[in-house]
């Protein structure tokens, strides 16, 4: 086999060369050059060129006398290389080298050589393993290698690789542990920390090429010491070590990828906190004006940022997530919230999470009965999916019989309601200042919750209990009369009861059917009542021979307060269809119909989203309220609808809207 990249700096022997390919990336060029060198058994040069304003690296095989060009082209054809053309080599001034020893010399001195400290050589493998285990407690990098010397196999235990400046300290530490005879060994090519960027090589310019790089000696036997049943892998001859384009030694691309030998991906995240932000613009267009004369076009913006920092190897996590919404029409919709301000400490089988956090419980899609800890951010989105941050201290214990979570929830967050110009509200305004609390401590009250969850094969279960102020208030109606005593308007006053709610959530996976159940029993807000959601989700992978997945969700919503005006979801059927395109832009669409069997009203929502480029996301939402009875346009008319158990969506018949939201991620 001809030596890879042999030749002097100025090539005079071969006047011409075949251009086999051009690459803009150094790594690809080197990989391909190695592959071709191996396959063709001929020298491949990498020559920088500029064409059309672009920097390229050309792979060139010098034309050799005695090699038939038709044969050579056929060989290339077999390798998938069709178009080759000749260039004059003597015109080339620069050549990119892949000789490791040369590149190492050329590496800026900031990158020092690395060394192992060999602690000892043992004939007995178990002795070596013992020493290694012992050192493991004191040093971050301990390894071993087996070498054949003087006809015997020795197992060397070593510490490192270390920078030269760290060697003395390591030697001292080893001496303290009674290993005083350590000696240093230069770390081998595969272990060397290479310069951070490939540009460090190509910008060096012109230097001599030659040689093969370090190839393990023929006699070397490697027996891995770590891990269960060690397998003897004997490199029978030097050939096997050269197999593949990734053979160690002469491939600088290999050296570059071997960088960061010390740092794990998570460690890198450890050292510095990360900020991730997103900014959204939202347009909502309503088909009609609101009952109180609200406008049809609404513009709003929101901004959220997240600071995340992980420390102590992921055992301590800090996060801060502030959120702000600004609404052009409705001042009461503009708000600021701290979604998260939390510290999580991870122990062995337990976690302590404290600060402002968000917790989600539940398995169903159409409504979330069991989820109770966080207050709904009612002005953000009518679907109730957005939540306000809740202060808490949460201890989570993981055992064989499940995960047990204890929550102490100091402080209560009131629900916010739309102002006069807001849409998707009932025509009476809610006066939050007049809110009534069953608890004497009002918003300073500390609530408690506990939850057990476990999974056994395909069955997942959760049992929870919450005791405290209800997140969803009841309302008292305060009529407003004009000078003549005519009933013209009203105010709704939120009443927050203290409740006890026990929740059950269960999920059972059978093939590609996912059966779901959520059930609650609540007391303290009127009589004790029970509500449940039961349904299934089925997914079809790749429908009609395309990449598109189809998911179907069907759920039945039940509430035994049937007949009371308060109960939404008292006898409803929900059907949802989701299409996932599985494309590069992660496009998906979801359409959901919720039909109230009792009142015949229907709510239809459509949501479609896609990514644009890599930093933008576009979401389209449409909501249609139908089959309800629109109230008569007067205060008594509204009051009638408010009290009517046969009308749950009466106020929203004119609230059909289309929403477009564009988000930019940073």
């Amino acid at each position, binding site marked *: 086999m001809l030596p890879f990249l042999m030749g002097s700096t100025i090539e005079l022997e071969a006047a011409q060369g075949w251009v086999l390919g051009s690459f803009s990336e150094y790594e690809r060029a080197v*990989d391909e050059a190695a*592959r071709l060198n*191996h*396959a063709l058994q001929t020298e491949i040069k990498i020559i920088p060129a500029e064409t059309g304003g672009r920097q390229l690296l050309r792979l060139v095989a010098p034309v050799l006398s005695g090699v038939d060009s038709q044969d050579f082209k056929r060989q290339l054809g077999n390798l998938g290389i069709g178009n080759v053309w000749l260039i004059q080599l003597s015109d080339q001034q620069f050549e990119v080298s892949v000789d490791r020893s040369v590149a190492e010399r050329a590496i800026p001195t900031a990158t020092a050589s690395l060394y192992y400290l060999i602690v000892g050589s043992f004939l007995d493998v178990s002795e070596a393993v013992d020493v290694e285990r012992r050192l493991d407690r004191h040093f971050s990098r301990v390894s071993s*290698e087996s070498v054949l010397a003087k006809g015997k196999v020795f197992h060397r235990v070593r510490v490192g690789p270390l920078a030269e400046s760290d060697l003395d300290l390591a030697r001292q530490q080893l001496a303290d542990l009674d290993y005083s005879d350590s000696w240093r060994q230069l770390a081998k090519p*595969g272990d060397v920390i290479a310069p951070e960027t490939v540009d460090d090589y190509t910008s060096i310019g012109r230097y001599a090429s030659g040689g093969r790089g370090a190839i393990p000696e023929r006699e070397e036997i*490697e027996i*891995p010491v*770590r*891990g*269960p*049943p*060690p*397998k003897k*892998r004997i490199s029978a001859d030097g*050939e*096997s070590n050269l*197999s*593949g*384009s*990734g053979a*160690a030694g002469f491939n600088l691309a*290999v050296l570059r*990828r071997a960088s*960061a030998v010390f*740092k*794990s*991906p*998570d460690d890198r995240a450890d050292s510095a906190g990360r900020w*991730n932000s*997103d900014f959204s613009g939202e347009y909502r267009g309503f088909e009609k004006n609101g009952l109180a004369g609200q406008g049809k076009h609404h513009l709003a913006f929101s901004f959220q940022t997240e600071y*995340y920092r992980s420390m102590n190897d*992921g055992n301590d996590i800090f996060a801060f997530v502030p959120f702000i919404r600004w609404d052009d029409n409705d001042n009461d919709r503009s708000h600021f919230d701290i979604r998260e301000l939390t510290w*999580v400490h*991870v122990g*062995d*089988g337990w976690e302590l999470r404290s600060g402002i956090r*968000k917790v*989600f419980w*539940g398995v169903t899609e159409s409504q979330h009965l069991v989820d109770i800890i966080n207050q709904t951010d009612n002005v953000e989105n009518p679907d109730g999916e957005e939540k306000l941050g809740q202060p808490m201290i949460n201890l*989570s214990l*993981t055992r064989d019989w499940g*995960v047990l979570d204890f929550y102490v929830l100091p402080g209560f967050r009131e629900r916010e309601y739309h102002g006069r110009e807001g849409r998707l509200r009932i025509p009476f305004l809610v006066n939050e200042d007049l809110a009534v609390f069953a608890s004497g401590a009002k918003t300073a009250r500390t609530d408690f919750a506990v939850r057990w969850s476990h999974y056994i094969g395909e069955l997942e279960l959760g049992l929870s209990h919450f005791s405290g102020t209800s997140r969803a208030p009841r309302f008292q109606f305060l009529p407003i009369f004009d000078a003549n005593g005519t009933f013209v308007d009203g105010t709704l006053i939120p009443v927050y009861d203290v409740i006890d709610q026990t929740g059950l959530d269960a*999920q059972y*996976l059978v*093939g*590609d059917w*996912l059966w779901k159940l959520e059930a609650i029993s609540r007391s303290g807000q009127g009589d004790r009542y029970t509500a449940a959601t039961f349904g299934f989700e089925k*997914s079809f*992978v790749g429908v009609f021979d395309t*990449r598109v*997945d189809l998911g179907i969700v069907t759920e039945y919503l039940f509430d035994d307060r049937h007949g009371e005006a308060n109960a939404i979801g008292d006898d409803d059927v929900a059907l949802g269809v989701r299409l996932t395109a*599985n*494309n*590069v*832009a*992660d496009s998906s669409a979801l359409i959901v119909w919720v039909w109230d069997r009792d009142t015949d009203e229907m709510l239809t929502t459509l949501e479609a989203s896609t990514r644009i480029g*890599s930093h933008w*996301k576009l979401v389209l939402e449409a909501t249609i309220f139908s089959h309800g009875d629109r109230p008569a346009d007067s205060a008594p008319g509204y009051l009638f609808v408010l009290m009517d158990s046969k009308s749950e969506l009466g106020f929203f018949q004119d609230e059909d809207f289309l929403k477009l939201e564009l988000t930019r*991620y940073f």
Partner: protein
Amino acid sequence: MIRIISAFLLLSISCAYVQAESAEEKGLAIAHEVDARDNGFVDTKVELEMVLRDVSGNQNARSMRLRILEVPEDGDKSLTVFDSPPDIRGTGLLTFSHKVASDDQWLNLPALKRVKRIASKNKSGPFVGSEFAFEDLASQEVEKYTYRFVREEDFDGQACFVIERVPVDRYSGYTRQVAWVDKAEYRYQKIDYYDRKGSLLKTLTSTGYQKYNGAFWRADSMYMVNHQTGKSTELLWRNYEFDTGLKDGDFTKNSLQRMR
């Protein structure tokens, strides 16, 4: 006499049968060897960058971090967290794979703070919109296929065994696969995938094999090209680390929610 002759015949037939290793046995033996070569890594931490290309040369990238835990006598546990694109940052996937039974899989949606159990019986769908299906990236257990040795052939300058493998799972998107395994180190060099109609669908080439911890070969780069659509996905694996001290407790719903 007849008894002796028939006994002798029986003996010679059985000897002849034992001597000729069938193509199925040889294929299975090769598959076992590939699997055995990979045993004992204990756990892995690695970064993955995925480059998706379409026919026009448009490129999209995804990056993620993976953690894998070897489970004795069963399939591996893995935890994948996405770092980019930014709208799916923090989304995580926890998988407990099993030798024959379908995997247990959970998806973490950080915006909703919700961990969803997902059905993973059918793994033929694309993984995050790429040309790799879930079943292509899942832990490759020997029991998931039946094998047949085809021939010996060189690929990319290396002497290889060519084996054909047929998925056992009836939900698989493939009728068969043909794999080139190099004789030197028993690593997959190339795999051809044949779709449900039996036509060649995709080819996976693994290059840049490095040896880690003196024992485990891992490819730096995997290139999957879909011959029918012309699209391709390249996986670039970086910063492999083995035996880092991961435990079962690092692969739970709680740990899935913790990682962002």
